[in-house]
């Protein structure tokens, strides 16, 4: 089974108005080529779920600058002034979520959980509108799963079935987002034959991956 697509075929899977997840942390582990192609294509009115909105000229930050995002769900937007501007002027809806909660929301969606209880955010504005549940004298917030139509993720090496190894700190949200979208497109630096990866080192099992794009080394 070969899941490989050209980068154009891959980005054509994303339609105006869809919800997408993009792996990465301040650009580290963003699938840069997929993001660049999405910027080039100009697909719009997207809901973007990502840890952050990176920097204006780096990674997912470019999608914000190019005004393709209608709604952003992220934990941090401070490194991209354009996000703040669009938020303050009402051009883009921004939902800020504690980072650990965001990670777990994605994990919950991919793991068949109806939600989870976290102490993070109790006593802050994060608790507004959320159910509070006390267990053994500790208050928790009920947080719900978060899924997407398409996830764009970045890996180091994949085999043709989509088993993926990562490098360095790029794993962050990629490993989680690979489980939580209807279509999962992975950009990797190298694609090898099935059997060439050491099963002990594979982090994302290929069953999660719908399509692969061979990026070559960045």
């Amino acid at each position, binding site marked *: 089974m070969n899941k490989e697509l050209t980068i154009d075929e891959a980005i054509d899977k994303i339609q105006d108005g869809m919800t997408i997840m993009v792996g990465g*942390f*301040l*650009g*580290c*582990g963003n699938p840069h080529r997929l993001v660049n192609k999405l910027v080039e294509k100009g697909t719009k009115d997207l809901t973007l779920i990502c*840890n*952050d909105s*990176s*920097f204006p000229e780096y990674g997912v930050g470019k999608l914000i600058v190019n005004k393709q995002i209608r709604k952003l769900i*992220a*934990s*941090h*937007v*401070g*490194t991209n002034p354009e996000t*703040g501007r669009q*938020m*303050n002027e009402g051009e883009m809806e921004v939902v*800020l979520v*504690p*980072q*650990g*909660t*965001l*990670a*777990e929301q*994605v*994990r919950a969606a991919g793991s068949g959980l109806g939600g989870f209880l*976290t*102490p*993070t*955010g*109790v*006593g*802050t*504005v*994060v608790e507004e509108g959320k159910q509070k549940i006390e267990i053994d004298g500790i208050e928790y917030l009920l947080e719900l799963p978060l899924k997407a139509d398409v996830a764009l993720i970045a890996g180091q090496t994949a085999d043709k079935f989509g088993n993926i190894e*990562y*490098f*360095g*700190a*790029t*794993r*962050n*949200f*990629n*490993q*989680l987002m690979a489980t939580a979208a209807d279509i999962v497109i992975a950009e990797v630096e190298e694609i090898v034959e099935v059997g060439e990866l050491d099963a002990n080192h594979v*982090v994302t099992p290929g069953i999660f991956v719908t399509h692969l794009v061979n990026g070559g080394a*960045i």
Partner: protein
Amino acid sequence: MDRNEMKAYIAKRVAKMLHDGDVVNLGIGLPTQVSNYLPEGANIFLQSENGFIGLGPVPQEGNEDWRITNAGGQCVTILPGGVFFDSSTSFGIIRGGHVDMTVLGALQVDEKGNLANWMIPGKMVPGMGGAMDLVTGAKKVTIAMEHTAKGAKKILKECTLPLTAAGQVDFIVTEMGLMEVTEEGIVLKEINPEFTVEQVQEATEAKLIIADDLKDMQI
């Protein structure tokens, strides 16, 4: 002291609070400087919330690898024995009480141990990033900051900005002293001998409790 000396002084004092074997998360800015003064011979495991333990120094120019960055997005290195992991594992470590101390800056902190450090409504809304999880989950929360913001008081009776977490702060270290947040209020335990107790109180809105065994700052 100029501001750089002040920051170094604060970072040095916080570094002395760390023990062999501690897992520690250092926030961006002043808290990051704590890593320059870690106790000699002690194994301190620096956790980076973007997904690793064993945070090493910034690489020499030309050796940067953009796949290894810290939570501020800067290129760093990983020490021998370090490990990478995903964000869910990272925040499992943080919320699960496996981080011994988190060191963060603050916009405001109050005598109930409340912390505000993630937004100023109408002005600055960078987002909370991992701060809410860190402050909620770490065993000890230490605030490392300048005592005032150009004279405006930051250690208050009650925070007025949106909170990062309620009742989680344990220690506050500034250029003026080291304070512990207790049930009774904020206790001044150590003082920089360049200041008097009166001066520290004047720069603090909350009523300080002066420790019976008030010491000079242990730098």
